[in-house]
């Protein structure tokens, strides 16, 4: 059964150029996207910052009206029947915001339990269950302002699950969380999916999408540029190798020369810590290492490695070509 149906969905933001003059500037954040999510599926919306992921989620949870197109969640139109959608979905976003800092975690959960109509006699048990799930049992009476970022994120998840939503929207939930916290979060999300909750997750972390998602839509510049299982997306660049060269110098200036080499599909520069790495993706069967090193003549080089493509390579290639 399809629980999320998105058809030709568009959203344009209009901002006034100046309070004193007429006229506005338009930004088309989502440019007519289509996708569908089946019940029980964990669907990933993967894309860089500003690609339109959050705008899409906000339209689906009824915080924004689409400019055109349509979206239905659990059979309810997000424009015509927003309250029915709100009763059935949960929304969790990443980062520090979205909590009442001066109050305790328990106060936060009690308030939202009321807003979501959790019956009074069930609230105590439900909140205790979620505090346990979120690993916050014993800390629930402390003020949120004293919580770590990971604790806040887990409290967000607990809040989003209070009313046992059929569909959970997670907007970059692991942003800013340490690796251990992010791993715990992924375990929680996977458990939710296993328990039957449909999840729509946005992220720009490849490994997160690869590990969790049943299907992924890659979104770039407001358009869906690819859709499929992680394996299907990887197979797009699955044949052929990837050459990585650590460089010290003006790496950007050599990219045109690298892209012009025979057998090269794409070439990009990635920042990794204090160094820059040129990542060259080769056509299947092409041997490009010598050509790449030749083109980098005169630039100080570090480590050179050849490896098999990952989902990240598929993603970068899709986003670059969008």
């Amino acid at each position, binding site marked *: 059964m399809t629980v999320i149906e998105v058809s030709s969905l568009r959203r344009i933001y209009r901002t006034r150029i100046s309070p004193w003059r007429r006229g506005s500037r338009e930004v088309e954040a989502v440019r007519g996207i289509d996708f569908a999510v089946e019940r029980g599926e964990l669907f990933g919306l993967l894309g860089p910052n500003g690609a339109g992921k959050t705008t899409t989620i906000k339209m689906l949870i009824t915080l924004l009206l689409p400019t055109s197109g349509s979206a239905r969640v659990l059979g309810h139109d997000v424009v015509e029947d927003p309250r029915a959608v709100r009763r059935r979905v949960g929304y969790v976003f990443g980062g520090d915001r979205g909590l009442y800092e001066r109050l305790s975690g328990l106060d936060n959960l009690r308030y939202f339990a009321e*807003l979501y109509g959790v019956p009074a006699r069930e609230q105590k048990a439900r909140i205790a269950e979620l505090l346990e799930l979120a690993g916050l049992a014993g800390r629930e009476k402390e003020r949120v302002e004293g919580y770590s970022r990971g604790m806040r994120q887990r409290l967000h998840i607990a809040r989003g699950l209070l009313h046992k939503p059929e569909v959970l929207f997670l907007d970059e939930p692991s942003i800013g969380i340490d690796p251990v916290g992010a791993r715990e979060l992924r375990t929680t999300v996977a458990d939710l999916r296993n328990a039957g909750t449909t999840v729509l997750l946005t992220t720009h972390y490849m490994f997160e999408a690869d590990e969790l998602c049943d299907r992924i839509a890659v979104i770039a510049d407001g358009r869906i540029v690819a859709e499929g299982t992680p394996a299907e997306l990887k197979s797009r660049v699955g044949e052929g190798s990837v050459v990585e060269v650590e460089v010290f110098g003006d790496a950007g200036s050599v990219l045109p020369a690298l892209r012009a080499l025979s057998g090269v599909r794409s070439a990009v520069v990635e920042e990794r810590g204090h160094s820059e790495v040129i990542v060259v993706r080769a056509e299947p069967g092409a041997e490009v290492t010598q050509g790449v090193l030749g083109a980098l003549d005169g630039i100080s080089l570090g480590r050179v490695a050849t490896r098999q493509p990952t989902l990240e390579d598929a993603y970068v290639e899709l986003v670059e070509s969008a």
Partner: protein
Amino acid sequence: MSAAPAASIPRVLAVGWWFHLKMLSRSAFNGILQILWPLFFATIAFFLYGIDGDDRTLLYASIGASVMGVWSAVSTSGSGAVQRERWQGTLELLVAAPVPLASVLLPVTTAMATVGLYSMVTTLLWGRLLFGIDVSIEHPWLFAFSVPATVLAIGMLGFLLSVTVVRYRSAWALGNAFELPVWLVSGFLVPISILPDWVRPISWVLAPTWGVRAIRESALGGHPLPDLLLCLLLGTVYLLVGVFAAESILRSARRNASLSLS
């Protein structure tokens, strides 16, 4: 799993009111302001009217000063509170909840008005203890009814303001902008009879005008009932307009993406 049951609106209002009251009590800054404001107002009023030396005039002034405190709490802090919800990212979560927007905004301003109620008590105590004013009340029952009715009506006016804050990011400044004019136009400190004629209609549509009159009439002797009824009527009108406007304003906010900061 199924849809969440519909929330009980009276429970949402009551729990929300308590929740926001609790939050206000946790802010030392707000707390100090709420303690100091009414004392300033009361002191100014006593010195203004003190020349006369008449106890009843001073009681008239202290009632005006006390309602000023309620209005200040609601107008400035109430609209600021909704803006704070936007700033801390909770406004979107409140809107995403399956309850009418009015039911999450009303507790914010009524909690503020409740805090303002404190200013009323403080002002009267300040006047009694420091200036020795006789605070004997002519119609205690009507006084006891007029005070919460005025506080509630002021809360409803604040609710109307807060609805506009949802739509316009800078509308929180309206609360500050309206604070002083309403003091004047509602006759908190000076009788509205001395204001220009064209101001009168504005005074008439403001519930605090009738609220403060009802409190004064019940304290000093007179016929507070008509003023009390008008205060309640206007408060109800604000509530109904706010409830109906909230949904269309919310739709406009969804269209114009004004629920979040960016």
